[in-house]
């Protein structure tokens, strides 16, 4: 962002009087990128979705489903909690949730960074396709289910069946893992992993020691059909 843009007063949308449609419509203007402040979101759905320009969106309050869905380039900060599917299918940019996130946070996200300040519920990072997710608290069951690429960093604990049917995504957990899902195993933390984790924690502005985390990944035993695996198919 240039200095003049930063200096300009932010656009302001009050969702008690302005519609989500008006907000999103404005955010879809590729030329007008700058700061946008949203007040009184009151749990509304689909806030700040489909942005494709370097907007800086600040949302003061709790949001409903799919906040910042399919985000590209923009930074969206939620001063509150998020409903289901925050930053789903994000392509790039950054989504920062200061509170906690409901289910399927960062589902299928392909790029960019999602940071959850509190906890994330079940299926955090489900079908992850290349984005990075950092959760300061804990994540619920079935997180990183079928995750393909990218990283899920959990500073707290992980619920049941972490990384079930995992592909090539990397999972880093500092606390307890209730159980691992099918084909997910603990793996050695090598230097490259410590390096990657350090960079992710730094990007997420989380003060934690990479050495306290363990890494989980795919055992790659389900990649090809084998009759001996019939129990897990």
């Amino acid at each position, binding site marked *: 962002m240039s200095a003049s843009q930063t200096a300009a007063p932010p656009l302001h949308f009050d969702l008690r009087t302005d519609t989500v449609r008006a907000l999103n419509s404005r955010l*879809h203007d590729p030329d007008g990128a700058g700061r946008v402040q949203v007040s009184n979101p009151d749990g509304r759905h689909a806030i700040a979705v489909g942005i494709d320009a370097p907007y800086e969106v600040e949302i003061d309050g709790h949001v409903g489903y799919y906040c910042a869905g399919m985000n590209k380039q923009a930074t969206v900060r939620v001063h509150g909690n998020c409903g289901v*599917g925050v930053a789903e299918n994000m392509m790039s940019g950054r989504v920062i949730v200061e509170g906690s996130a409901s289910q399927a946070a960062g589902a*299928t996200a392909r790029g960019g960074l999602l940071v959850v300040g509190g906890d994330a519920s079940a299926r955090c990072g489900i079908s992850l396709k*290349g984005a990075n997710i950092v959760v300061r608290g804990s994540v619920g069951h079935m997180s990183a289910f079928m995750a393909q690429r990218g990283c899920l960093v959990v500073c707290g604990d992980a619920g049941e069946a972490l990384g079930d049917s995992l592909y090539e995504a990397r999972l880093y957990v500092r606390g307890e893992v209730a159980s691992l899902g099918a084909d997910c195993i603990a793996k050695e933390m090598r230097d490259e992993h410590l390096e990657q984790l350090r960079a992710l924690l730094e990007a997420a502005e989380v003060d934690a020691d990479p050495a306290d985390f363990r890494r989980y990944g795919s055992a790659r035993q389900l*990649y090809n*059909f084998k*009759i001996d695996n019939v129990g897990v198919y």
Partner: protein
Amino acid sequence: MATTESGGTVLATGRQVAPSLRESATFDRNVIAEIQRAAREGMYDIRGFGAKRRVPNFDDLLFLGASVSRYPLEGYRERCATDVTIGTRFASEPIHLDIPITIAGMSFGALSGNAKEALGRGASEVGTSTTTGDGGMTPEEREHSNKLIYQLLPSRYGMNPDDLRRADAIEVVIGQGAKPGGGGMLLGHKISDRVAAMRDLPKGIDQRSACRHPDWTGPDDLEIKIEELREITDWRIPIYIKVGATRTYYDVALAVKAGADAIVLDGMQGGTAATQEVFIEHVGIPILAAIPQAVESLMELDMHRKVQLIVSGGIRTGADVAKALALGADAVAIGVGALIALGDNAPEHEAEYERIGSSSGFYDDWQAGLDPAGISTQEPELEARLDPVLGGRRLANYLRTLTLECQTLARACGKSHVHNLEPEDLCALTIEAAAMARVPLAGTSWIPGVNGI
């Protein structure tokens, strides 16, 4: 197999079997071969194509045609329109099709790039749409399809907002007729570098797509998901919901409530690129039984013709199209028929079909990636056999034929638009078809379940 003069049987191998040998109806040769295969391989059979068993279908219906009490239209002079508009409920840019026949969603990955291009060329030539599939949108298909429907599937392979904005409509896939309740499959030998990159997967794995969407469950969530898609695309393009035919009456009502512009309803005969045989043959209901349920549901909500109904699953001829429309559909979609038009199962490849253990007319191993016709493959040498321009022309010819046949029947019933065909124009040949399609058994006024017993 043929029968000899003495009443015996001639096997495909040419060997004659004495009439005293009796084949079991329960354990017929197909069943025996399948048990032997299962015992050998220890794994379910995965294949392409649609259901092969016979189920009640459009062949069990007939048109009544015009007579003394109603007059037909002249074939060449009187207009019988075929156009259809989809997405009139919420989209600011609905889709206008010249013919009521669309190309169903078939993925790049399952199909070769040339096959996708040929589908786009053929459909565009006659003014209709094609659909992406489980694997994302390729630049080639966007370029060659004037109207391209972009599928949002549980796997979300290749999903991205740029392609969403480039699409002419979005199709949220809940299920398909070949496997309602199942996810996609693409076996390792079809995961080429390009397919792997588009799907963010390692090359060569046997890939099973998710069967449930990752970020919503149930109709209330679906409504919010649709709201998000509308917001992303600024309420411009129509949103379809595709379901396999199962509990159709309820699914259609819920899809309407969730905010669909159109419903794609795929019967159990519907084609697939790769699915467990047990799924293909044993799950879902025939499209014949599903259309009246869908139409009833739409009518009760006062949404018939407002939320368009596109039906598929075993549509082969213009007669099938006309009958589907007469039962209340706005358009049909075709998969297997379109691939056959491109050259699938063509006799000219017979020697090669035999080499891979099949025969033209029987070939269904679309999962294997060895298609001699270059359609269901990712092998560059095989793919090169399908000329996309020629394939496109063949598809356009086939679509024109279907349209002409459909118009012929509509005119014979005195209709100036194919959408004016109605159940009253039909009768059924069997009690089953009469009950499912809710039209009277031929020569009677009896509709089982509706009147009489």
